[in-house]
């Protein structure tokens, strides 16, 4: 009842200056609209760009590093055990690229609750023959189904289906620039020379396009069985184990643990792509700053209009106080005016922001390296809508607070006697 009366007075004061109020609300609407559209667009683009690397990069990669044994025979020689050993040209010996006992390792990793999935890979260098010319490249033997589940493999394959790798025997997928270089098309046979100098004919069933041209120029994929066959390895031979976690932030810790546990090299995504996160977080930060600046400007508009309203309604405030409205009541009335501008303008802004996002979402956008993207990416994360409406309320509250406090301090005696 008490609030109802204050509300009623606030509404009638609002309506008394509805044009100014509307302009103030439009200011808020505009800034929230831009805030939502900007953030949605920017983070959509960010996610796309980050995805270029992050989606396909394993959170942890386990492999065998070719390295010298840190424990050299000289250390066994008595009399020199407290000395510092200078040995030049130490060679790595008895080291293979293969991950020993890979099946047991994979089994252990899969049982780890932090792990979303794991996918083995056979990484082997190869030459692609074009007539007499040999082009150096890399063939990765993968399990396409698992690879797709963890790293969206199929999205980057055009001209054919990535899943065919397992179905069609002796098939291969080439990076598109590599295929162009080799002058081959879908269905053609690609001749591959392995490091053991054997030549294998493989059938091209699709193009791979990662968006990073230099990578695509050397990249080829086949099924893990085919890769094992052409490199003359047994069926459990893998060189890499890729791990994807539920939470990417766990990667460094888990990598460290696996390194110790399995005696392998383990590299986490943060170490491998440290510069990447910085760029994306700064882009998000800039979008936030622009959006918030817009809102603050709108806040000044509200401040102005409320100040004007108070000067205009000085008499009304005085008589309200004379007839028993306390300073708190008057403050509440003006805060209510400010907040209703915020709620009204903010809600409309959310709707317009959503509509603008929908429009942006339909604008054609041909990302040459990502065949699956045809329009601008937009992020519809409800979090931004929540932040938008919260921030519009906070700004309008803050911009209403000073005028409201001023109104609550109006001395009715001065106003009434001043006439």
């Amino acid at each position, binding site marked *: 009842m008490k609030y109802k009366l204050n509300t009623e007075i606030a509404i009638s004061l609002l309506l008394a200056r509805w044009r100014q109020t509307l302009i103030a609300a439009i200011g808020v609407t505009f800034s929230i609209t831009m805030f939502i559209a900007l953030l949605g667009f920017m983070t959509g683009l960010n996610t796309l760009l980050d995805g270029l690397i992050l989606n396909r990069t394993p959170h942890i990669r386990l492999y065998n590093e070719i390295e010298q044994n840190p424990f050299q025979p000289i250390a066994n020689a008595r009399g020199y055990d407290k000395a510092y050993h200078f040995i030049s040209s130490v060679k790595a010996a008895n080291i293979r690229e293969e991950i020993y006992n890979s099946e047991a390792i994979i089994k252990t990793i899969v049982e780890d609750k932090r792990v979303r999935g794991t996918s083995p890979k056979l990484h082997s260098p190869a030459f692609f023959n074009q007539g007499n010319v040999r082009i150096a490249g890399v063939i990765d033997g993968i399990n396409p189904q698992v690879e797709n589940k963890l790293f969206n493999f199929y999205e980057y394959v055009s001209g054919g289906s990535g899943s065919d790798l397992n179905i069609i025997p002796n098939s291969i997928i080439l990076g598109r620039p590599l295929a162009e270089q080799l002058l081959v098309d879908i269905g053609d046979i690609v001749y591959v020379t392995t490091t053991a100098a054997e030549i294998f004919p493989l059938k091209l069933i699709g193009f791979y396009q990662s968006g990073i041209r230099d990578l695509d120029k050397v990249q080829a994929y086949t099924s893990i069985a085919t890769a094992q066959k052409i490199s003359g390895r047994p069926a459990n031979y893998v060189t890499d184990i890729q791990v994807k976690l539920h939470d990417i932030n766990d990667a460094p810790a888990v990598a460290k643990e696996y390194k110790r546990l399995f005696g392998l090299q383990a590299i986490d995504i943060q170490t491998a792509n440290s510069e990447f996160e910085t760029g994306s977080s700064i882009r998000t930060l800039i979008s936030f700053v622009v959006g918030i600046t817009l809102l603050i400007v709108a806040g000044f508009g509200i401040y102005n209009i409320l100040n004007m309203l108070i000067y205009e309604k000085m008499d009304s405030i005085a*008589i309200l106080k*004379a*007839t028993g409205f306390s300073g708190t009541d008057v403050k509440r009335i003006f805060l209510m005016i400010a907040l209703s501008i915020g709620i009204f303008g903010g809600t409309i802004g959310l709707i317009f922001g959503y509509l603008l996002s929908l429009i942006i979402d339909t604008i054609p956008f041909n990302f040459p390296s990502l065949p699956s993207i045809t329009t601008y990416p937009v992020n519809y994360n409800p979090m931004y809508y929540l932040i938008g409406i919260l921030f519009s309320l906070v700004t309008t509250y803050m911009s209403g607070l000073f005028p409201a406090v001023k109104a609550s301090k109006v001395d009715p005696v001065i106003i009434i006697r001043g006439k």
Partner: protein
Amino acid sequence: MSDIVLEARHISKTFHEQLNVPVLNDISFTVNRGEFVALMGKSGCGKSTLLYVLSTMDTDYEGTLLVEGEVMTGKPGSRLAEVRNEKVGFVFQFHYLLNEFSVLKNVMLPGLKLNRHTNKEIETDALKWLNVLGIENLSNKKPNLLSGGEKQRVAIARALINNPLIIMGDEPTGNLDKKNSKLVFDIFKDLSVKFHQTLFIVTHDPEFAARTSRMIEMEDGKIIRQ
């Protein structure tokens, strides 16, 4: 219940801008229930200042003010606002009606604020007072369409809505022509006689003052006759 509705004890006030010039100088008096008091004095003698001190709106004074036996001096602003709402009705020289609301709503506002009766009851009450003052037909109009005399009558109705302990007036007829002045005075007289309403009116019009039941005269911040 005591019959004293308003009591001033040794009230003094000095304007800070003009040092050592007392506007009110040791003023003490009481107003009893049902009295129709006129506070007389020349311009600048401090009578309006006294009224605003008595109204609880001006809190910058020395001495003690009691409304119906309750000490007002030093009370927080919110309590003073409650007291004004419940016990004091105001009629100013200017009407101070809210142009955003209808006449009826203007009259109802203090009642709604008091929140002791339902909306319906307050509306009935407001219409009753508008009827008594002969302006019932204006109830749905906006105040800015009314004449000066009509506005002042609406203001009186607003002052009456909470059945106040006392009605205070600051030159309520000062801005009206002869005819309307007489009308407003007759209303006050009626309220005093028929409804035994306590009234405390500041005026500089001797004619007005002469027809009230009690006259207090001020000069240079002091009461010279009561």
